[in-house]
């Protein structure tokens, strides 16, 4: 490797931010200034594998700089590259990949205003215009229109991030112009966010399984978690042994809740049986599908459950290291989880000798930085490893070559927390919940035009109508979006669709991650479709042609017909279909393959342009 650095120097702040993460530089090669150094150390350089193997600290390093000063300057990037032996061009490629980073100067405070589906339906564009009118140039706040912030139950939402030491954040939701401006200008004095349980209308209901502790336990207290049944599942896991745990999970019929519905037991078994070591456990908490916020509520309301579940997954698959990849827009979940991990380590439920069983496991949190694509399992690996979050081509699959090229089991947050009731209830009792093919309870993220938006837990098999009844269906329902931007629309007369994987498939739609977004007829459908297309255009990683250019061409076509109906749209709809078909067939990953789903369903099922 041929490292070449420019002449730009980091500021003291930038240097301090990087040093806080990596420790002080040990030689002048790493950027220590001469007068600080003993003469003997001047020509000393860390080299070889030891230097290069820290590439995965690139993303945390970029976060450290961005958190401290609000953007990433040439000098700061060069210094970070020097410290990590990373070529500056590659680090620049990584920094420019993520929406939350800027390589151009910007104010220390950034206000992300969500303009995605639920927020758009709740008046985000007026909110945005109002905020932009008040926070213009010179206000010290940069206002950025953002994809879904995962606060759909309180739409419209805004998130303020003020760089400094430490970085400060404030959430304003439901946001008014006044509240959002206040949050951005003084994040410290902004009113406290309501507790996570506010997003769970059923909170406290004793019949709940996955959500039973949300709003009941103190999310900061490990004792409280234990008093409410915490760590009984892990004890049970130690009794069963790794093979026994996998058998229980397989028998339970649990399938992935992130959207792909792959059998979890099979994934665990495939990872556990790989001869290559080490094995890794990765929790995919990069919840970015517009309309999805269930994982946030679990992490904020019951963080120890996720820690315990990851420990069980690791024990079953022979892993001793876990990564929790959390989306960058979830500051409260980050704090709760950091606290939970520290408590768990202090109390011996994480670390070298968990519960005195001689089993070692620890979890590291890695923060995303604004990229929907990083929720794709292999893009997530690249992101953790310090590369651009572009999906890898499969095969090989993660169970064989995953994180750092090693066998990896990657599960969504909701999937993992399902393992706890499986072990405490036993597989047969768990499998008795729901339907034969979709077992267990399922979380649904209900938002949009309903009385009580939030997370609902229902056994698989409940109908869409029953769920919407629970959430308080409003009159003049025009459409329901299932599965988020990558899902599909259904009509108000299709409320008898059973909410199971097989039931939605039979109805020609998809359950996805459990998004149920209701729209009444006040929201013009073509605008929503255009917003979905904009979302995919912005979030395409750019690796493959069908998705990189196809999402642009689709957005252009939807833009042309946003005010048109009938015959005037026929040509563009034909074009959308042809491009959509190639995207579905020829894109590398699920993003491109599903980007056209929702628009297609709106045309075919809802007659959006008739």
């Amino acid at each position: 490797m041929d490292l070449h650095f420019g002449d730009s120097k980091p500021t003291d702040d930038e240097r301090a931010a990087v040093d806080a993460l990596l420790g002080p530089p040990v030689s002048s090669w790493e950027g220590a200034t001469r007068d600080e150094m003993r003469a003997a150390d001047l020509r000393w350089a860390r080299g070889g594998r030891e230097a290069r193997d820290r590439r995965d600290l690139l993303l945390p390093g970029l976060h450290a700089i961005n958190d401290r000063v609000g953007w990433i300057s040439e000098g700061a990037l060069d210094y970070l590259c020097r410290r990590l032996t990373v070529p500056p061009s590659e680090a620049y490629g990584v920094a420019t990949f993520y929406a939350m980073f800027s390589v151009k100067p910007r104010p220390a405070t950034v206000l992300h205003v969500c303009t995605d589906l639920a927020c758009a339906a709740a008046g985000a564009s007026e909110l945005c215009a109002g905020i932009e009118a008040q926070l213009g140039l010179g206000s010290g706040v940069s206002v950025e229109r953002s994809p879904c912030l995962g606060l759909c139950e309180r739409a419209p939402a805004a998130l303020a991030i003020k760089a400094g030491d430490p970085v400060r954040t404030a959430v304003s939701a439901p946001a008014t112009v006044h509240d959002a401006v206040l949050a951005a200008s003084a994040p410290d004095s902004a009113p406290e966010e309501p507790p996570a349980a506010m997003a769970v209308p059923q909170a406290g209901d004793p019949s709940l399984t996955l959500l039973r502790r949300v709003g009941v336990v103190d999310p900061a207290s490990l004792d409280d978690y234990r008093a409410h049944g915490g760590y009984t599942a892990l004890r049970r896991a130690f009794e069963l042994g790794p093979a026994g745990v996998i058998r229980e999970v397989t028998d339970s019929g649990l399938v992935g809740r992130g959207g792909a519905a792959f059998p979890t037991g099979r994934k665990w078994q495939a990872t556990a049986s790989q001869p290559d070591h080490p094995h890794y456990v990765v929790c995919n908490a990069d919840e970015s599908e517009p309309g999805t916020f269930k994982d946030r509520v679990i992490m904020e309301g019951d963080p120890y459950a996720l820690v315990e579940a990851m420990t069980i997954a690791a024990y079953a698959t022979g892993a001793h290291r876990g990564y929790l990849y959390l989306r960058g827009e979830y500051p409260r979940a980050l704090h709760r989880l950091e606290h939970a991990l520290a408590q768990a380590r202090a109390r011996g439920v994480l670390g070298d000798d968990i519960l005195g069983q001689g089993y070692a496991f620890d979890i590291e949190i890695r923060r995303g930085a604004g990229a929907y694509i990083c929720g794709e399992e292999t893009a997530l690996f690249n992101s953790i490893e310090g590369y651009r979050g572009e999906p890898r081509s499969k095969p090989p699959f993660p169970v064989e070559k995953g994180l750092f090229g090693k066998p990896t089991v990657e599960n969504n947050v909701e999937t993992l927390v399902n393992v706890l009731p499986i072990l405490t209830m036993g597989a047969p009792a768990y499998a008795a919940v729901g339907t034969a093919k979709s077992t267990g309870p399922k979380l649904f993220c209900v938002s949009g035009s309903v009385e009580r938006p939030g997370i609902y837990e229902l056994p698989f098999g409940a109908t869409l109508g029953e769920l919407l009844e629970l959430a308080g269906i409003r009159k003049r329902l025009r459409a329901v979006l299932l599965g988020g931007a990558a899902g599909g629309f259904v009509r108000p007369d299709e409320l008898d669709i059973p909410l199971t994987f097989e039931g939605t498939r039979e109805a020609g739609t998809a359950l996805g991650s459990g998004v149920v977004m209701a729209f009444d007829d006040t929201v013009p459908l073509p605008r929503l479709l255009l917003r979905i297309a904009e979302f995919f255009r912005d979030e395409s990683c750019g690796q493959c042609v069908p998705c990189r250019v196809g999402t642009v061409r689709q957005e252009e076509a939807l833009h042309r017909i946003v005010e048109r109906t009938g015959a005037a749209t026929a040509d563009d709809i034909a074009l959308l279909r042809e491009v959509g078909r190639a995207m579905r067939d020829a894109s590398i990953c699920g993003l491109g393959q599903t980007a056209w789903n929702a628009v297609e369903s709106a045309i075919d099922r809802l007659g959006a342009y008739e």
Partner: protein
Amino acid sequence: MTVVPLGIPRRLLEFTLDGERVRGAEGSTILDACRAAGKDIPTLCQGDTLAPKNACRVCVVEVEGSRTLVPACSRKAEPGMEVKTDTERARHSRKIVLELLASSVDMSTTPRVAEWIKEYEAKPDRFGPDAARLNEEPKIDNDLYVRDYDKCILCYKCVDACGDQWQNSFAISVAGRGFDARIAVEHDAPLTDSACVYCGNCIEVCPTGALSFKSEFDMRAAGTWDESQQTETTTVCAYCGVGCNLTLHVQDNEIVKVTSPHDNPVTHGNLCIKGRFGYQHVQNRD
């Protein structure tokens, strides 16, 4: 006598290609089998000296049992696999990929693309006059080569050749995301401020002419570039003892560009700045 290294013997596996039984070495790709069978599958991002990136998706084929189409360039042949290369579905995706590329990128210097556009009946104009294009100006920041990113299809080959697959200079990378992604050095600086060592190995692998010798770029601009008038002479570089092969492209008794044979077992098409660009003394007649 030349000794040809044969390597470890590889098992042959059998599969079906467009209804015919074919055999391929274990580890070979569907594309290898297609080419061995004389089938012309279009490729752009595939490079004979590079690991497949399968980014362009123009080589997609249908494999029985696969939900989506698969890229022939990277998918390894498996025993019993049933591959169909010329179905309506595969041809549709190829057509759309060609339309998407040709409507956004200047493909005037991409070999064979005009032929494929005709073969697949692609109509890049159908997206209308307002369809977004890359709209990049050529970057001319040194005397040796030009980066005309209006012609870039983002195939990643230059990045791979500059990085860990060949040169290990890591001067360039993909920056930005989605349609706004571009090949760039850090901070989008000129090449002269980067780690570039001017080996030109990126030009060697560029499939579209986005990267070209300054001499070629200037001649094209002047309208004097004429490949039919060029001869190619492969010789040995005289600068050092490695003995790299150079192919000199000569027009009107002037060297206009230098490439290297990709099948050369020493260089695999790679050169250094001296072999690639250090030819002026040959034609300095003063």
